[in-house]
């Protein structure tokens, strides 16, 4: 699964370049997430703007991604489609992950890097 890692803003961002995180792609997502983020040190915002569908396997993979980051780095979510937000609410994972409306809000909450 293609992920794009952006480190030039006030918080690191991983853009998921796929329209689904499901049972067919959950393992590939976790593997790619580990590869992309292993050199970083900061919190990571997962940009789910392209992800229109997430099932419980995909949710498990997102939880796994937080565990990959470890205790010193938080995983936060942004740009959730309605269907994805619904899964987060129903499973109460919206109480575990900080959820931002979009990347601008995520950047602002981490203090925009004043040039």
């Amino acid at each position, binding site marked *: 699964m293609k992920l794009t890692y952006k480190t030039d803003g006030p918080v690191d961002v991983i853009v998921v370049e796929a329209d*689904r995180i*499901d*049972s*067919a792609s959950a393992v590939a997502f976790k593997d790619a997430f580990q590869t992309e983020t292993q050199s970083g040190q900061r919190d990571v915002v997962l940009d789910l703007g392209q992800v229109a*569908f997430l*099932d*419980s*396997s995909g*949710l*498990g*993979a997102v*939880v*796994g991604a*937080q*565990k990959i980051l470890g*205790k010193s780095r938080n995983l936060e979510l942004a740009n959730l489609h*309605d*269907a994805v937000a*619904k*899964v987060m609410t*129903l*499973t*109460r*994972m919206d*109480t*575990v992950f900080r959820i931002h409306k979009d990347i601008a809000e995520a950047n602002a909450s981490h203090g925009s890097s004043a040039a």
Partner: protein
Amino acid sequence: MPEPKSKSQFERTLRPDPLEVRATLVALRQELSPSVDDDSIDTIELICAEILNNVVEHAFADPMPDDGTIRVRTDMRDGALTFNVVDNGHPMPGGEPPNPDAPEVDNVAQEALPEGGFGWNLIHHLSGGLSYHHADGCNHLSVWIEV
């Protein structure tokens, strides 16, 4: 004379494989999209995904039955969609669908956060009811979803 098929009727046969599950869900979504609202389609897709994922993972767990086949059929009637799944995999343990409590997420240490166990809870929570029986070597599961 046969009754006319409802516009939203959908039938598909698939092998127990996650990519075939995905293709089935995408096709079901396309079939429903002209006549059913997006919010309801999201719910239907999630329930059907969780059911089919469970079939693939559990009914066709080792030892894998030969010629694993899953047949899916939907019927839309009286404001509800019935999703029928027949598979020739292993029967459900205990003879009925599990109905577990939702995994605990409050005050759970990060390393202990649940990465699974959400599927049946979502199915029970989002659906209007389900029925299951095992007959003629097949699992027969039907879930009723209000639209």
